[in-house]
C-alpha cells in the first residue's frame, strides 16, 4: 500500500517539476523580417513562439512538454515583433501556413518551419534576428 502511494507521488512530482514554467515578471521581445527568396518582404506570415522542454519522469525518461506562448504575423513589409513571457524551455520561432526556412538559420532537427532562437543574444530583453528567407513547402 505504502509503495503504491510513494510510486504515485514520485510520478506526480516528476511530471510537475519537469514541465514548462512561465515567468510573468520577465517579457522578451523578438523582432526581425521574413522575406522570400528574392529578398522581398513577405506579408501576413503567421508566426508563433514555440517552447519545448524535455524532462524525465519516474516512468518515462524522455517526455516532452510543448506550448505556444505568443503569436503574431508579419506586416506589409515582412517585419514582425512578438512579445512573450520568459520560460524554462527551448524557444523557437514557428512558421505557420506551411512555410519553411531556405537559408542557413539554425533549425530544429530537420523541421524547417522551426527556427531556434538564441536567447543568450538577448539585449535588454530584446532579440533582433537577421532576415529569414522562407518558401512554401
Amino acid at each position, binding site marked *: 500500500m505504502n509503495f503504491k502511494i510513494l510510486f504515485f507521488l514520485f510520478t506526480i512530482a516528476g511530471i510537475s517539476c519537469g*514541465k*514548462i514554467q*512561465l515567468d*510573468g515578471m520577465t517579457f522578451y521581445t523578438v523582432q526581425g523580417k521574413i522575406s522570400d527568396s528574392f529578398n522581398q518582404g513577405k506579408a501576413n506570415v503567421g508566426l508563433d513562439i514555440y517552447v519545448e522542454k524535455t524532462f524525465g519522469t519516474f516512468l518515462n525518461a524522455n517526455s516532452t512538454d510543448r506550448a505556444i*506562448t*505568443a*503569436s503574431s504575423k508579419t506586416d506589409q513589409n515582412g517585419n514582425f515583433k512578438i512579445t512573450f513571457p520568459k520560460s524554462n524551455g527551448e524557444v523557437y520561432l514557428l512558421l505557420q501556413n506551411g512555410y519553411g526556412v531556405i537559408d542557413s538559420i539554425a533549425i530544429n532537427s530537420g523541421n524547417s518551419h522551426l527556427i531556434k532562437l538564441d536567447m543568450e543574444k538577448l539585449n535588454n*530583453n530584446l532579440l533582433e534576428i537577421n532576415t529569414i528567407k522562407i518558401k512554401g513547402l
Partner: protein
Amino acid sequence: MKKYLLMALLLNSPFAQAQKKAFDSDNLSCFSIGAGYKSFIGNNFLAKTYNNRVSFVYDFNFRLYKKWGAGTFYRTTQAKPFTNQYVGNSVYARITELGFYATYYQKINGRWLFSPKVGFSTFLLKNQIKSPYQMTYYNYFTRGTNFFIAPEINYFITKGLRVFANTEYGFINMPRVTANKAATGTSYNAANQVNFCFGFKVGF
C-alpha cells in the same frame, strides 16, 4: 382617528425605534461585500491588454479611535485579454488584491457617512496560456503593489445595515517586471487603475 392611531403605532414600533437610534450610533465597524468594475488607464501593458472587468470585494473595517478606523480587503477581478501583443497568448487572467487602509468617518445629516480611505494592496496578475498540444494550461504571475485613495459614501438603511459606493484611484508599481520599453512601446513597471464599487455593509 384610525389614521392617527396607525401612525402612533408605527412610530412606537420596535422597527421605528431601531431606525431612530441607528443614525446616532457610533457602530462603525463593519463587514462589507461589494461588486464593481476595474479599468486600467495610461500607456501601460495592463491598459493595452485587458478590458474593463467585474470585481468582487470583501472588506473588514474597524473603528479604532473616535473618527478614525482601519480595514483590510480582498478583491478579485476576472479579466479577458483582447490582444496578445504584450503578454503572450493569455486566454484568461485574474487579478487578486489583498489590501490595508486607514479611513476617516464623517457623518453627514445623520443617515449619510463620508469615509475616505488611503492605503495599499498587493497586486497579483495571473495569466493563463492554453497549450494546443496536450490541452494543458500554463499560469504565469506578474506582481506589484497598488497605492490608492478611495472616497466613499455610505447610507444607513438601519442601525446595522448600510449601502455604500466608492471610487478608488490606484497607482500600481511593478519595479521588478522587466521588458524592453522601446520595443514594446509601453510601460511594464507602472500603471494606474480606477475601481468603481458598490455594495452592502453589516455593522458589528
